[in-house]
Structure formats: structure tokens, C-alpha cells
């Protein structure tokens, strides 16, 4: 919420009234801090950020964009290349590609080609058209403004409808449909030029996150800076490669004790969607994540067919955040015999236990099931063991629990191993499903490292 102040040191106050203003505050803070070094003054109060409107101008905004995105803007790369004394053929080729990098650069440089000698001319053209180049590149690049808001409204004063994707509607054609009683006069919306600062608050690449930790403005900014720092550390560790912001965020929640150990709302923007999504982090989920201790093994995808991959990390997090069992994933991995499957299934069972709160009796039964499975695997020839494993997997996937119990009895009889753990399955299969999963999963000859 934005408010004008009179007779005070600052003329504007912005409160984090909803996530859009919270994100705008963080973006604004980064902008004002950048100019703070050059004398711009602002104040972080408990509930709001205070500043002077005159400190926001198109020219300053674009200058900040240039600094914030750096080499992601093609003209910055070009400038860097032009400062080098000698350029190889490949670099000359790359420079010529950059000269046609987007429509504004094509317009500025026209048919001009870099031949290794005309650096001055190129630099002069960049300097002459710098403002337009930054504005148009920033406006249209899919990871910059275009990812967050309607490109037509960049740096425009507030309109009838919010400029952000997912909020924006084509006013000329659809305004009646979103109004009460098909009457445009009843439509209430908040738009603000300050929403143009939102892109600076989201962190990540294809999937970017904003943590709306808005109880106090100081905390809001602090949390954003913390996450930014975690991402930078991860980038440094991965030697400059792009990092998955989701992984960094949840790994940080898991490992850094005072980072987000409370209920908080996270806003997600996926570049493939033209809307924002909400992710609620709950204390119960944080506890599960922390007790789980491991994270890296889930950062993978599973190929289902040439066009379809399951993002395991996303699925596991969905289960943890929604406190739902990972049965779907367990059954997916039980069906194949990859090297990693056994380990992953054991971790998924562990997640189930953390979510459902398995007691000591359950732990003992699971240990027994594991030991029995290993004994059976030792006694049975590979083809028999594999065949029983297959039968049990099919029965459990089809939720034919009676069949599953029958196969267990047959297997016990055939292998001459007593399955003490099976009584709880006969009593209530659904509730003790994890014991069955543990047994099937351990029915291999591979040595379990866990």
C-alpha cells in the first residue's frame, strides 16, 4: 500500500500490504541502496519503506537495470568485447551475432558489421542509444520484465488494471467479464509504477522465488538478501553454472537453522507460466525436511518416455509441503531396477515415516522386513527372487493387498523364512504399507549402503 506523506522528510511511504507491494519494497530497496552510495536518502521503518518520489526516474531506473543485470544485457557484453585489444575470429563472429542479438540492437546497428577495426563506431552507437537499448532489451527479455508484467506497461503511470501477469486483463475487451454484475465501474484493482521494481526481488532462473516474509520490512529485506547470498554461494561452488533456485531455497531451509523456520508464504514465478503461484511453507513441513537431513539425492528427473520426465525434486517437495505420502514415487521406482532405486525408495519410505509419524513398533517391523528380504534374496536364485519381487510390486501398485499377502505367504513357504513382520500387514495393510515397501525394496542382492 502506497501513501503520500506531507511535511515530512520523505514524501512517500510503502507498506507490504500484499505480496506485490512486499516484492516492490525489496526491489525498491535494492534500487535505492544502489543510489544510496551516490547520496539518495531513504528510510526503513518497521512497517514501511520511506523515500522521495523524485528519486525515481526513468533514466535512473534504466541505469540500475544495466547495473543489476550486467552481462545478461547484450550491449554490456558487446562493450566488454570492444574493450579487448585483439579479437580472435570466433570472437568477431560472436560480436556480429551480438549486433543482431535482438530487435532494438538490429535497429540501432542496421547493416553494420564488426570487422575487427570499427570498435569506436560500435561503442559510439551504444552510447548514443544506451537508454533505448536498455529499455527495450529489459522490456522484452524473457527472464527480465517480460517474465513478470505486461511489457506495454513498463514505466507507465498506474492504469485501471494491475500490470503483473496473472493479474492483467485486456481492459478493452474483457474488463466487463471480471467486474461485478458485468459493470466496469465496480472493478477495483491496484496498479502502481512501483510494481516495475518487482523483477529485482525474485531470485532464480527458470523458476524464481520471492519470500514474502513481511512481518517487518527489515526482515523482508534480510530474508531476500540471505537467499541471494545462498544462491551466489551455490553459483560459486558450481563454478558459474546456472543453479536451481528451488534446490538452494529448500536446502537452505533444511540446513541453516535460523533461515525460515516458521510459516511463510513464497511466491513462485515459473517462466513457462504467465502467472504467479503461491507456495505455503508450514512448520510441520520444515520439521520433516530438517529431520530428513539429505536433499541432493532427490535433485534428479526420471525419464518416463522421450517427451515426459518426472521432476523428482519437485514431487518430493510437493509431498513434504503437503504432508502427503510418497507412495506414487515409491511405486514408480519399485517398477524399475536402476542402481539408485533401492536407495531412493528407502528415503521415500523414510519421508513417509516422518510425515505419518511411524512409532517404534513400525520401525522394528520395517527392520524385520528388511532382514527377511535379504535372507530370502540370499536363499533364492535370481530369477525366482526377481519374479516374486515383480509379483509383489504389481500387486501393491494395483492396490490388490490380499494378493500381496498371498504372495508373501507363498514366498515365506517357498524360501522357508518366517515373516514375522507380515502379521501387521494381514491386520491392516494400508496403515503398514511402508513395511511392504521396505520388504519389496530390499528383495535384491545389491548391498544396501544405508
Amino acid at each position, binding site marked *: *500500500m502506497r501513501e503520500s506523506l506531507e511535511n515530512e522528510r520523505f514524501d512517500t511511504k510503502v*507498506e*507490504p*500490504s*500484499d505480496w506485490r507491494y512486499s516484492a516492490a519494497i525489496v526491489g525498491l530497496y535494492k534500487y535505492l541502496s544502489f543510489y544510496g552510495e551516490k547520496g539518495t536518502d531513504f528510510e526503513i521503518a518497521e512497517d514501511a519503506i520511506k523515500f522521495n518520489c523524485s528519486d525515481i526516474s526513468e533514466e535512473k531506473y534504466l541505469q540500475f537495470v544495466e547495473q543489476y543485470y550486467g552481462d545478461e544485457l547484450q550491449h554490456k557484453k558487446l562493450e566488454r568485447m570492444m574493450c579487448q585489444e585483439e579479437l580472435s575470429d570466433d570472437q568477431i563472429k560472436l560480436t556480429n551475432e551480438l549486433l543482431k542479438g535482438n530487435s532494438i540492437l538490429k535497429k540501432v546497428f542496421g547493416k553494420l558489421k564488426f570487422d575487427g577495426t570499427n570498435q569506436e563506431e560500435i561503442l559510439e552507437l551504444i552510447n548514443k542509444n544506451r537508454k533505448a537499448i536498455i529499455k527495450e532489451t529489459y522490456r522484452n527479455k524473457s527472464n527480465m520484465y517480460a517474465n513478470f508484467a505486461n511489457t506495454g506497461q513498463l514505466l507507465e503511470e498506474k492504469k485501471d488494471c*494491475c500490470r503483473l*501477469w*496473472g*493479474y*492483467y*486483463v485486456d481492459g*478493452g*475487451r*474483457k*474488463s*466487463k*467479464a*471480471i467486474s*461485478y454484475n*458485468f*459493470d466496469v*465501474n*465496480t*472493478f*477495483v*484493482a*491496484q496498479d502502481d509504477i512501483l510494481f516495475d521494481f518487482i523483477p529485482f526481488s525474485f531470485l532464480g532462473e527458470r523458476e524464481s522465488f520471492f519470500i*514474502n*516474509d*513481511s*512481518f*517487518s520490512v527489515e*526482515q523482508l529485506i534480510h*530474508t531476500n538478501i540471505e537467499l541471494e547470498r545462498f544462491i551466489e554461494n551455490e553459483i560459486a561452488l558450481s563454478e558459474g553454472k546456472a543453479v536451481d533456485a528451488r534446490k538452494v531455497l529448500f536446502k537452505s531451509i533444511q540446513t541453516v537453522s*535460523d533461515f525460515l*523456520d*516458521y*510459516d*511463510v*508464504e513464497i511466491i513462485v514465478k515459473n517462466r513457462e*507460466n*504467465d*502467472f*504467479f*503461484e*503461491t507456495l*505455503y511453507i*508450514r*512448520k510441520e513441513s520444515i520439521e520433516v525436511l530438517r529431520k530428513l537431513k539429505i536433499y541432493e539425492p532427490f535433485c534428479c528427473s526420471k525419464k518416463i518416455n522421450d517427451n515426459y520426465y518426472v521432476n523428482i525434486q519437485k514431487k518430493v517437495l510437493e509431498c513434504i*509441503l*503437503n*504432508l*502427503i505420502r510418497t507412495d506414487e514415487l515409491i511405486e514408480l521406482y519399485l517398477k524399475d531396477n536402476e542402481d539408485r532405486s533401492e536407495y531412493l525408495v528407502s528415503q521415500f519410505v523414510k519421508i513417509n515415516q516422518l510425515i505419518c509419524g511411524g512409532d517404534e513398533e513400525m520401525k522394528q517391523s520395517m527392520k524385520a522386513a528388511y532382514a527377511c528380504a535379504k535372507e530370502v534374496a540370499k536363499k533364492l536364485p535370481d530369477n525366482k527372487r526377481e519374479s516374486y519381487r515383480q509379483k509383489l510390486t504389481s500387486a501393491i501398485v494395483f492396490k490388490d493387498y490380499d494378493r500381496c499377502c498371498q504372495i508373501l505367504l507363498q514366498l515365506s513357504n517357498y524360501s522357508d523364512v518366517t515373516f514375522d513382520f507380515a502379521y501387521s500387514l494381514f491386520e491392516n495393510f494400508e496403515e503398514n504399507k511402508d513395511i511392504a515397501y521396505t520388504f519389496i525394496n530390499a528383495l535384491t542382492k545389491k548391498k544396501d549402503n544405508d
Partner: protein
Amino acid sequence: MRALRLIIHQSSANYKREETVDNKMTYPLPPISTVIGALHYICGYREYKEMDISIQGKYESMHREPYTDYCFLNSVQDDRGILVKMRNGSMLSNAFDKVATAKKPQGNSFREGITIHVDDQELLDEYRDLKNRKDSIDEFKKKRITPVMELLKKRKKHLAEKKKKLDRKTAEYERVVKREKEIKDREKEIKSRLDDYQRQNYTIPISRYRSLTKSMKFYEILDGITLVLHVRAADTVLEDILEHIYDLKSIGRSEDIVSVENAEIVELSEDFEDDEVTSKYAAYIDCDLVKDGRIYLRERNGKISGTKYYLNKKYEIVNGKRIFEKKKVLFVSQYTADEFGDGLYVDRYGEETYIVNFL
């Protein structure tokens, strides 16, 4: 303190956040205005009755659900969407007949038959006839009416000039005035006949045609919700709500059906003999209570964090728009209180103890 306690279950719900269109984002619990609106609706109140609500609850999971969104455009567009004819032109509903569908996002024409799929040729012909009739009316206006009107305008001007030169008491002046009136009446008649003709033969029949667009949109849905609501209001209002509580069908969208587990008027207490109460539920808590340390989230005097919401409570209509009064709340769970009174109460129900904070 007398209050009404409601324990409600919903298998799923979306508590929509203002302005979200493409993905209708949800609040984690219903906002105050949603609850107040639902309670006013079941009691049939047409005016606002003062009430304060305490909202706590929990949900099991959350997912995003796609749906097909049908949107009637502001006006009929010849080049896009689905052309439909409403059974009742003055009502927007799903009682319509499909006339034709545009095959491309843009650049189609129902009138010219460019890249369209015809669903009802008869209705499409009617639409085209109407459009042709509009063209003939425009042509008639341009070629016949405009010259006549201009001529009448010239005559009026001439008569006005003549009138200025004449003495008001002369017969000639009277004649000019009479003639001027005749011309004005003629002008009016021409306009009104044309408007009548246009209304009967074009405006009314074409108003039954609408452009409809279909798109995939999303709802964020919470599943397995339990809500514990406390209502503080005048005794008559509480009794009204209690009487009509089983008329409460939904909270959120109309399809977010509720089942009421418990509804009773209870006496809330400000005294609590045990040390402290920790809530099992998540809740919206007045920010000031958290700031003052009367509700604490982790260890006492620890850092306060979390998401603050400015929730809508009641509105006033200003220039046709609903302008809401907002309440600053913090969304928290596993919170603890040990001092009650002054807006903070305890309610015991069986083995449960609820911390009640009216907003």
C-alpha cells in the same frame, strides 16, 4: 464474553486473493470478509451487521487445478473467439447457441467467412443479415438523412437570422417562429424514426449475439480443511446465525461445500488456570498482539517473522466500487499465549482449547 463457535469442514476450497485472474491464488484460511459475507447471506441480511470474527484452522494439502474459463467479451468481435446467440439477450448465462468458432487467434471474420468453423448456418446468416442491415442503415444515414439534416440546419440558421431582424410583435415574426418549430419537429421526427428503426431492426437483435472466448485458467485449491470460527456480535445476530447455520452451503466458491460439525453459543473465558496454551491450528492473529508479546511464536522474546496480510473486513461503496476496511494480521501456526483478556480469549471444547482472537 458470549460468542458463537463454528467448527466447519470443507473437502476443498479456494479463498481467492483479490484481482488474481489467470491463476486464482488462495489465502491459507478464509479472509474475514469471506466469512462475514457467508454469514450475512444465510441470515438474509441486506445491510452490514457489526461482527468480529476469529479465524483459525488447518488444511491437509494444496494443489493447482485447471479449468476452462468462459469469458464474454465487452462487445461482439468479428475476428475472434466463439460467436454465440443468447437465448435471453438481457442475461448472461450458459443458455446460448453456438453460431461459429474462429479457427485462429486473430485475423478471422465471421461475416466474411474467413477461417471459421460454422456451427449453425441459419444463425450465422441471421448475424450476417444484421450486419448488412447495419451497413444499409449507415448508408441510408449518410446518403439520405445527412443531406436532409444539413438542409434543415441551413433553414434553421436562415430563419434565426431573419428572426433577429424582425419585430417580435409582427405577424411575420410569428410565421417565422411557427416555421422554425415545424422544422425542429421535423428534425426530431426524422431522428426518432431512424432511431426506432435501428433499434428494432439492428440494436435489439444484435444484442443477443455475443463473443465468447475460452481459455485454460487455474485455481489454487486447499484440500481437507478444518475451520474453527468464533463470531462476536449482538445477541440477536448470534441467534440469527445459529438458527440459519445449516443453510450455510459454502465458504469461498459456491462449489466449496461446507459441513458444519459444531455450532453453539459459548461463553469465552479470560482466565486460564494452566500455564500457557499452544494452538494446534494456524490462524490469523492481530499483528499488535504479536508485537506486544502477548502471542509468541517460538521462544518468548524471539524474533517475529512470517507473512503479514491486510485482510478485507467490511466495505463501503464509493462511486460504485467496494472500498474495504483492512485488518493487519499475521498468519501463524503453533503459537502460544499465556495472558488472556483484552481481545484474547480461551474456549474449551472437549479436549481442545482454542485461543480466540477477534479481528
